[in-house]
């Protein structure tokens, strides 16, 4: 059993014991007379206990009132309702109690007064006087007769006393006559009744009273009847005692009258006390009822208010967002139904909150997913609201617009244009389209100042529900270059096709002309023809070389990938230039490079082109310094192999950018303008990165970074 249950059981037990004792006390107080003297000695204790019990009840009520006041001060749920209910219940109970009390007091007074009407008392007094007179007359008769007998016995003397007493008894109505000596001894005795054969000596008080008079008379109880005792003095300090019995019926009647007079007299005397006692008992009952009512009202109010207080507390908890308030449903009444409904509502609310939480989590997941997608999207995404305030911008957008991490993204579009002037081209276009009210648009915009070269962005925009807009833009610079590369490849392919075919006949024709005609010509003409045909053959060779280069550039993609040992391949290529007097070759080949999968022929061509490019760049120097390096690097968790070619030539021209990797972009007087273009194309085909940098020491550095594995 829990502690609260034990305390509750103890309280109920104490209340029941108290109630039982109170009722028993009231019963004893009310009926002590009927219980006899055996219980009467408990009377003060019972009375005191009743008062103590009432005091305890008052204390219990006082404690509850104090507790209620404290609850009211603290604003506990249900306290005010308890006070209201308590007042109502007490107000309901008080008037009937007071009415019953008032009528009860009045009824008690009237009833007690009616028990002994004045005429009854007078009648009883008359009856008593009649009985007294009857008794007086019988005593007087007995006195006369006894005096006569005393005279006869005195005349008879001591010798004739026995005979004289018998005669006197016969002549009188006495039932016994006895002569006592001065010392109390019986001198003579005569009895008319068998039960009076023994003497009945007089009391000392009677003998003393006889000393002052010649005759003494008294009336005594004789069993259920009455008798008269007469004492008369005889000569010689003797005493004559005569006993007379009253007729039984007359004695009973006079005794009944005496009893009735007693009862009436008592009733009259006790009238005030009786009213006081009844009023006191009634007051105790009233107080008991009142206190019990107040206590019961407390219990009732608490019982009624408890579910409401629990509801109030639970409502507060729910308002604070705590849904763990499951209330005991209790009775099957309206309050029980209310509590059941509340519990159902709480569960529904909790379910709804769980659904909202799940939905929010799902939304958050979607947002995170979208953010991740946007973060890793190469296209820039920019979202503005209806007030043209930038709401969101992914990392690619920041990069494409050239925003630094310090520059805020959540700014009005117009402000963004001010803090990031390089993005003015896109921001201006976006603002214009939004002001025009366009629903969707697509166009190219150019940003100046982000890179060395203008950056071309492909901008697509659309209105969002709620009057915002989203702009998605890609860097179209690479696409543009790819398109140009494709155009150049087409040009090269056509050149190779259209030019290469007539070259061989031209060369063969020139050689045949030289072989057939030259011997037949004069010295001067022969020299002219010789120079002319020589020039034709040489130029055709040059054209063939150029066309072959175009062919290499325009060759359709199709790599023969295989495992490649870059160091060995580099070594083989560099061996060809080892004894070239124009070159001072330096090799820095890192051993243990990771394996590569690449087209060996294309990579060989790359190295050839880069070395040739370096030699041609240093054509005005007696001997070019060329350093070829291979090394393994790791970046962002990925492994690469780099192939670098450095020279000490004039370096990269001013304004060098990716356009310099297009065909016919060469600063060298004898270059075809295709060498670097072919290298860039091969790099693109291998997914490699190709870069050109200026060396701080002077000269240029070309780096091909190939993915390993």
């Amino acid at each position, binding site marked *: 059993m829990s502690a609260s249950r034990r305390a509750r059981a103890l309280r109920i037990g104490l209340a029941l014991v108290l109630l039982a004792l109170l009722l028993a006390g009231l019963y004893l107080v009310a009926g002590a007379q009927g219980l006899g003297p055996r219980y009467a000695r408990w009377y003060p204790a019972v009375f005191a206990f009743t008062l103590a019990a009432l005091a305890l009840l008052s204390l219990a009520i006082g404690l509850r009132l104090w507790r209620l006041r404290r609850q009211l001060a603290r604003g506990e749920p249900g306290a005010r309702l308890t006070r209201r209910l308590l007042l109502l219940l007490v107000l309901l109970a008080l008037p009937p109690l007071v009415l019953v009390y008032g009528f009860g007091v009045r009824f008690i007074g009237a009833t007690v007064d009616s028990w002994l009407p004045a005429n009854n008392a007078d009648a009883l007094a008359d009856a008593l006087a009649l009985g007294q007179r009857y008794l007086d007359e019988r005593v007087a008769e007995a006195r006369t007769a006894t005096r006569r007998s005393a005279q006869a016995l005195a005349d008879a003397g001591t010798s004739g006393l026995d005979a004289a007493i018998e005669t006197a008894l016969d002549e009188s109505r006495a039932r016994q006559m006895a002569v006592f000596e001065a010392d109390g001894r019986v001198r003579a005795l005569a009895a008319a009744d068998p039960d009076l054969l023994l003497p009945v000596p007089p*009391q000392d008080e009677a003998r003393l009273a006889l000393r002052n008079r010649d005759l003494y008379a008294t009336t005594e109880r004789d069993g259920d009847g009455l008798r008269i005792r007469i004492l008369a003095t005889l000569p010689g300090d003797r005493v004559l005692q005569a006993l007379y019995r009253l007729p039984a019926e007359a004695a009973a009647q006079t005794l009944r009258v005496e009893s009735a007079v007693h009862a009436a007299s008592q009733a009259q005397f006790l009238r005030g006390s009786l009213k006081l006692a009844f009023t006191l008992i009634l007051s105790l009952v009233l107080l008991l009822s009142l206190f019990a009512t107040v206590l019961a009202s407390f219990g009732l109010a608490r019982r009624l208010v408890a579910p409401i207080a629990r509801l109030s507390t639970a409502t507060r908890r729910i308002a604070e967002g705590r849904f763990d308030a499951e209330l005991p449903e209790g009775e099957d009444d309206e309050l029980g139904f209310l509590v059941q409904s509340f519990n159902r509502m709480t569960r529904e609310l909790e379910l709804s909150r769980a659904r909202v939480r799940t939905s929010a989590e799902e939304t958050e997941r979607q947002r995170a997913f979208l953010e991740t997608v946007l973060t890793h999207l190469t296209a820039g995404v920019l979202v503005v609201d209806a007030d043209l305030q930038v709401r969101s911008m992914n990392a690619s957008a920041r990069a494409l617009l050239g925003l630094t991490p310090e520059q805020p993204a959540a700014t009005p579009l117009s402000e963004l244009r001010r803090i990031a002037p390089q993005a003015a081209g896109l921001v201006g276009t976006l603002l214009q389209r939004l002001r025009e009210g366009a629903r969707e648009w697509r166009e190219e915009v150019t940003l100046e100042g982000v890179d060395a070269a203008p950056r071309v962005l492909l901008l697509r925009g659309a209105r969002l529900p709620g009057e915002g807009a989203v702009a998605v833009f890609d860097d179209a610079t690479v696409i543009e270059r790819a398109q140009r590369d494709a155009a150049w490849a087409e040009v090269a392919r056509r050149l190779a096709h259209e030019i290469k075919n007539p070259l061989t006949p031209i060369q063969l024709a020139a050689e045949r002309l030289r072989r057939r005609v030259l011997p037949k010509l004069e010295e001067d003409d022969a020299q002219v023809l010789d120079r002319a045909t020589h020039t034709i053959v040489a130029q055709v060779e040059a054209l063939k070389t150029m066309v072959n280069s175009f062919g290499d550039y325009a060759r359709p993609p199709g790599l023969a990938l295989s495992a490649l040992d870059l160091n060995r391949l580099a070594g083989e290529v560099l061996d060809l230039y080892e004894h070239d007097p124009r070159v001072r070759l330096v090799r820095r080949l890192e051993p243990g490079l990771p394996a590569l999968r690449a087209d060996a022929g294309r990579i060989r061509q790359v190295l050839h082109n880069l070395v040739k490019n370096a030699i041609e760049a240093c054509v005005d120097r007696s001997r070019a310094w060329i350093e070829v390096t291979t090394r393994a690097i790791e970046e962002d968790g990925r492994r690469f192999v780099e192939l670098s070619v450095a020279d000490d030539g004039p370096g990269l021209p001013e304004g060098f950018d990716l356009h310099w990797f297009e065909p016919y972009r060469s600063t060298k007087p004898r270059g075809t303008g295709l060498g670097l273009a072919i290298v860039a194309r091969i790099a693109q085909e291998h997914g490699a990165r190709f870069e050109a940098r200026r060396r701080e020491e002077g000269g240029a550095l070309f780096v091909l970074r190939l993915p390993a594995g």
Partner: protein
Amino acid sequence: MPAPEGLTLEVIQRIELSEAMHAALDHGIALRLVYRIQACGHGRQRAFWLRHAPLKRQYELQREGDDEVRGFTRLAALAAALDRVRLPLDLPADARCAGRVQVWLDHAALPTPLRFPAFFEPEQWQLASEPFVWSAP
């Protein structure tokens, strides 16, 4: 005092009945005087009834458990008769021990309605002596 049948305690006292007690007697209410005696380690109780007999126009004094009734025409005579009371101790004549006696008016013998006044008016209804200690001769 020694008696042929054993020891008897002779109590010499002065009992003054209050007006309320007078009135109660005159209205037929009997009063009970209780004597509690402790002697030789034994406790016993004796009682006297005081009542009024209107038919005989006298006040009566009767020892509880005894048929003998002593009558007095005046209440003062009854009170005077109570000045000297003899109470049998039920002890052998040669018993020698100390004892204690106390007398009071028995409220429990009063009618119920009179108990409230007796409870609330002790000056009228409180009749009790202090315990008196004696030693047997």
